[in-house]
């Protein structure tokens, strides 16, 4: 136990401010954002992550926004196991044919207003997998999409920024 406590104090708080560029953008939209999160989501945005066919690269970076360095909880963002509790679906792609039905069911299970954010190049435009017998391509081929976060995979800061921008987007 003493080792654990020791390690906790030694580590301290490692959470970083977002990169300057992202931080400035958020500052700029800060008032609106705060208002939006407070008003629409009561300071708590709940996300259900859905892998609709990804290579797992984007999932790793979505994991990373939960690590103590990016610490998404500071913005009131947390991940839920059930789409029933979700305000936002964070969907990675491409949408495989074998996941199309499950993705639509998850979408239908989430209560409105539901934001859908496509994460990664494959989710945004099909990426290297494209459209084929097995892949529908981008997420919007299956369900309505509110915002896209590009990158292969997008860096954790870009994912955070994308989520925050999507919240503002629907509130403007």
């Amino acid at each position, binding site marked *: 136990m003493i*080792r*654990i406590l020791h*390690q*906790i104090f030694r*580590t301290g708080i*490692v959470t970083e401010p977002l990169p300057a560029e992202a931080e400035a953008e958020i500052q700029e939209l800060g008032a609106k954002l705060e208002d939006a999160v407070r008003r629409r989501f009561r300071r708590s945005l709940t996300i259900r*992550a*859905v*892998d*609709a*066919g*990804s*290579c*797992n*690269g*984007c*999932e*790793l*970076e*979505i*994991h*990373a926004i*939960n*690590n*103590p*360095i990016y610490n998404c909880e500071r913005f009131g963002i947390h*991940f839920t*196991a*059930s*789409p029933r509790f979700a305000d936002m679906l964070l969907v990675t792609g*491409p949408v*495989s*044919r*074998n*996941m199309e039905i*499950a993705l639509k069911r*998850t979408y239908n299970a989430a209560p409105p207003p539901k934001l859908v954010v496509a994460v990664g190049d494959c989710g945004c435009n099909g*990426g*290297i*997998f*494209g*459209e*084929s*017998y*097995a*892949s*529908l391509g981008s997420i919007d081929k299956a369900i309505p999409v509110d915002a896209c976060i590009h990158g*292969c*995979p997008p*860096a954790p800061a870009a994912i955070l920024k994308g989520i925050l921008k999507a919240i503002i987007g629907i509130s403007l």
Partner: protein
Amino acid sequence: MEKNDLRNIIVSYFDTDAIQDNNQSPASVPAYRVPRERFAEAAKAMKSADARLVAEWAADESAFGRGFGIYACYNKESEYLIVKTYAPLEDLTFPSITKKFIAANRFERQMKSLMGVMPTGHPDLRPWIKHEDWPEDAYPLQKSFDASKPMTRIKGEYQFIKAEGEGVYEIPVGPVHAGIIEPGHFRFQAVGEDIINLEERLGYVHKGIEKRFESLSWIDGVKLAGRVSGDSAVAHSLCYSRALESITGCNPPERALWLRALMLERERTANHLGDIGAIANDAAFTFLLYQFSRLREMLLRTNLKLFGHRFMMDRIIPGGVAVGINNDAKKEIISEMHWLEKEFERLVVIYDENPSLEDRVRDTGVLKPETAKELGVVGFTARASGQAMDCRIQSPFPPYDRIIPKAPVLNSGDVHARAWVRIEEIRESIRIIREIVNNLPEDKTASDFIVPTPDKSGFAVVEGWRGEIVYWIQSGIKGEINRCMVRDPSSVNWLALEQAIHGNIVPDFPLCNKSFNQSYSGHDL
């Protein structure tokens, strides 16, 4: 010393019936063609020689006028051997070898589902990866199949194995799981909390990767290989490149080989760090998740800084690497390793000394050594269950012939063993990374890419962080990609999870599953 046990067995057993296949690049692996009706006999001979089935696959070779090629690759210690046969177009069948090798069960279901070749005598012909709502005659890997069009959906239902009796009930899980992970379906038959049987049903992230390769150039192919399983971007693109280089005879410069190994070890370290934390998290010890994810994040940031990408995607190219590191970068890696070692060892003590964690990870999800061997599992899963195998040792490429890794082997086969093997491997990787950086030869970073000539096959194995990755690629009639067979470690290791879960309780499933941490995407392709 090259051993030729398996080769000698096939040659002496089949005599003139076994013909060496010269289309297979001799630099990669010997291949022997046997008569179709004797294909299963070859498996029997391999089984009695104590060989392991590495992979089994088919290739549409109708463009060459010889029907479909049926391939089985075997391994014993450092020796790999391919046994092949042909199925003529008018009779696309071959003798099943699943009675000899359990791993063949899913390989052959997959061959039937995607290539339309029928394994005669196979006990379970339910489709695999192909879901029941695909048109029955859709065989995407056949050359005549138009992959650009979406398929219609038909009605159908997958027949799960059922358990019956008083108090027996069924728990369906997935494809959308509770966490931030890939999709797949697990069907439990349980009594109370005890699991009677677990059946996996995968294929949800099938994106047609193998077919997609066939429409890409050799150079673009390596990008796709890097996205077969995003966590193994380095290992997959390396294996693809090595298979391609084995056809063309291209020799990457020494420096490129060393940089490849450097990236491979960094990928191994980062993934293992994440996994150990995630295992502790699934035993409700969140503290270690956050601590280990902090270390992992620092490694990924160095990757971004020095190699231009957090997962080092697209940094390995056919012929070499697309990165170079200078002296400052070397210094940075050395000091990073110093930092990592210190931080890591502190956390290992905390892992090791925590009795409540120990209570969860010990004797949970046991994969017995004999089961591991029977299934032919690979990688840390195999090493945690008494199987001393590591491609870096058995089939080394420079610098692994000089910097020889030590493969930790444990026998308990439980969650703890799979975690501890990772801990030992991180220690080894830190040592290897230091040695590479300290002895990195000066040279170019890539040789010129050579385009393969028609009708040649290449083969390569690479020890990724999950284990042995296998690529077999074949050039077509114009020298294009005719077939690219990918075998992720998970393609065999998924079988092990079903076995390891017996005797466990349902709430321990996430912990067991995490200790294997298999790739869905690499399996489903």
